[in-house]
């Protein structure tokens, strides 16, 4: 009982982080099971496991909303940021520990609202995008969508205030901006984006609730409103949100690659200032690529085609940094490294298949097909999840003080990796041939039935692989061998604490040598 109370009322950044981890993995598990339902539903043409298209739409709403708002953003900016940032910069905690606790409570409230989808009589069926007019006329409960977004968004704003302050003012003496871990930079950049853009999303979803329940007409053209306003507001946030996910997950991959290649990060300043900086500057000017077929003015569609294509510059620099970090390394292939390399591979495919989608005229055919769904699972959904799983494996010994099972870890990786490519490659293929997304039934595309069946089998492989990983963690946390303080031989600061790190992290604030650097391997 006391232990439970200690955890619920904790203000220790590591415990807050672990609470974020548990909540977001729960969201992932439920949203993942729902993904299996979605895939199984498509095994045959016509109804397979439910007769009611509405059920399918509710599943898809939950899958999209929970995976993004309940899993990826919180696990990256909640768990990883909380657990790692203070340890990496040599701080005893974050700047505002109580605000931190409040943020995790808000997050849990949001998760509970999201899960209510499965018990309420009129669950939201507006998909994760919530476009009006449908979201304002549906008999589903759009307010639950709005409040889920608001709670989790507010949690994230609190996180932003906290982490920007922490990184700016609580670095241990000697840790200058140019000696920050790449991951710390990625969190800094991600929270800058959150602070700028979350309020826009908040206003968008609030306005649909006003329209639906209070009779305002912001999006009703018969009374002076405009339906496109919502889409502009929504994507003004939700495109940068992709980078709120991308930046931290690629930050984790940098940490893992540097450690398992025992190598310096290739061209650190190019990655941080050119790559991350470029992304922060450009990402707010490209949202119209989600509206290429929405009837926007031609000039802005063509203009944002150019800005969207230019995003390949900073992103390309980030990828060059990743590959370059392998150059002349001393590479080993434990489970976290496999996941990190898997991320690199998936992201490469996802990033490159995004280029046709940047070209407005090609998107006239591709928009809202399975090509898009395949592409964004590659680039963000599964690439991000691979990085997250790799990161959890990487910090597992530090967090729990025990080791996981290496064989089971690798087995889980390969099963998921194969399943992922089967599912999402097939998806892009039938998408180019015309399969639209968000379809309960595909009766007028019978030629795709076999592809759908292959994807269902592939999805079950993905599920099995992820389940093996989660089993491996639970088993390792309870029964694993004792782990040393620095099992991977990393030079980075977070590995210099005891395992698991005590409250307050260090007895004294650590002092770093003049020539210290988190990636100071080899001959330097």
């Amino acid at each position, binding site marked *: 009982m006391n232990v439970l109370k200690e955890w619920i009322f904790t203000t220790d950044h590591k415990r807050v982080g672990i609470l974020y981890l548990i909540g977001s993995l729960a969201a992932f598990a439920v949203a993942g099971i729902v993904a299996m339902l979605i895939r199984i539903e498509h095994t045959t043409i016509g109804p397979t496991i439910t007769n009611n298209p509405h059920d399918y739409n509710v599943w898809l709403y939950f899958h999209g909303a929970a995976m993004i708002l309940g899993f990826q953003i919180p696990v990256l900016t909640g768990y990883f940021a909380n657990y790692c940032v203070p340890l990496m910069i040599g701080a005893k905690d974050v700047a505002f520990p109580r605000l931190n606790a409040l943020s995790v409570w808000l997050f849990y409230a949001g998760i509970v609202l999201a899960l209510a989808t499965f018990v309420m009589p009129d669950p939201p069926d507006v998909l994760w995008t919530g476009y009006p007019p449908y979201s304002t006329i549906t008999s589903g409960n759009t307010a639950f969508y709005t409040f889920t977004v608001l709670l989790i968004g507010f949690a994230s704003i609190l996180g932003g205030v906290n982490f920007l302050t922490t990184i700016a003012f609580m670095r241990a003496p000697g840790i200058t901006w140019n000696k920050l871990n790449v991951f710390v930079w990625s969190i800094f950049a991600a929270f800058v984006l959150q602070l700028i853009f979350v309020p826009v999303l908040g206003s968008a979803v609030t306005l649909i609730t006003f329209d639906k329940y209070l009779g305002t007409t912001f999006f009703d053209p018969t009374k002076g409103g405009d339906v496109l306003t919502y889409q502009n507001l929504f994507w003004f946030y939700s495109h940068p949100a992709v980078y709120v996910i991308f930046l931290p997950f690629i930050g984790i991959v940098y940490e893992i690659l540097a450690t398992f290649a*025992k190598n310096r990060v290739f061209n650190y300043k190019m990655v941080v200032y050119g790559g991350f900086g470029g992304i922060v500057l450009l990402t707010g000017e490209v949202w119209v690529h989600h509206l290429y077929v929405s009837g926007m003015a031609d000039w802005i569609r063509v203009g944002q085609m150019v800005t969207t294509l*230019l995003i390949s510059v900073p992103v390309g620099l980030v990828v060059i940094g990743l*590959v*370059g970090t*392998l150059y002349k390394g001393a590479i080993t292939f434990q489970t976290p490294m496999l996941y990190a390399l898997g991320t690199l591979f998936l992201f490469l495919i996802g990033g490159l298949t995004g280029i046709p989608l940047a070209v407005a005229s090609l998107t006239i055919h591709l928009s809202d097909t399975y090509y898009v769904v395949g592409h964004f699972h590659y680039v963000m959904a599964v690439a991000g999840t691979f990085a997250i799983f790799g990161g959890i494996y990487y910090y597992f010994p530090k967090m729990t003080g025990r080791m996981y099972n290496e064989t089971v870890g690798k087995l889980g990786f390969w099963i998921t990796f194969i399943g992922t490519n089967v599912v999402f490659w097939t998806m892009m293929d039938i998408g180019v041939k015309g399969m639209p997304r968000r379809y309960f039934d595909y009766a007028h*595309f019978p030629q795709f039935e076999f592809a759908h069946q292959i994807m269902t089998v592939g999805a079950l492989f993905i599920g099995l692989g992820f389940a093996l990983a989660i089993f491996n963690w639970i088993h390792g946390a309870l029964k694993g061998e004792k782990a040393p303080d620095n099992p991977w031989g990393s030079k980075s600061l977070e590995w210099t604490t005891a395992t698991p790190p005590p409250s307050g992290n260090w007895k004294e604030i650590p002092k770093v040598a003049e020539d210290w650097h988190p990636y100071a391997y080899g001959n330097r």
Partner: protein
Amino acid sequence: MRVNCRVRVIVGAAAIGISMLAAVVAQAAEAVRDPARGWDRLWFEVIVDITILGLLFAAVAAYFLIRYRRRDPGQEGSAPRLSPAMAVGWAIIPAFVFIADDFFLAGNGWQLWNNYREVPANRIEIQLESGMYSWDYTYPNGVRAQNELRVPAGKAVLLRMTSRDTIHSHFIPDFRVKEDSMPGRVTYMWFYPRQPGEHVVTCAEYCGIMHSYMVGKVIVMPEAEFSAWYEQEAARFAQAK
């Protein structure tokens, strides 16, 4: 010898010139530049482009992974520290390569875009109102049709679209074209049906519970057959009134 050489050059140049001219004439003769064909061409180009980039990155990464495996425990990486010139070079040069590729793609994409947006003057213009869950077409002479869009082969078809409830998207995969229809705005799209045949129309914007059942078809008819149908329908509509 020298004269011979010069003659060959002149003949060669003339041949090239004539064939280029022929190509231009051929294009002009085909009065309508069909965006669907342009789409297939640009898609192929872009796929080649990204495949090359992808293979390049993958090959380098695979090489490093094999070449730089750790040989003995305790070994650490030995990447040299980059000199300032190298560091800047490694940022600027790739950046310019990417920017060049971006502008190349943007240029081609823009050209095709204009093609999609500039409707040939010789066209048939049809009004479309979408609703949960049907496509309702009105022809210039007042003929109406639901979920079946009959058009003559060999003439550009322009749809002016709006919606009476939620947002829908009129998607004809075979013609590589779609555009949303929504209340309060009129959007448009056009396509060029070459030969008689049938093509699926499907909804590509989530519009409600029966979204995946919002299907129709484009029926492309030989010119004469279409005129006969069109007149007959017009008479039928007139009678009904």
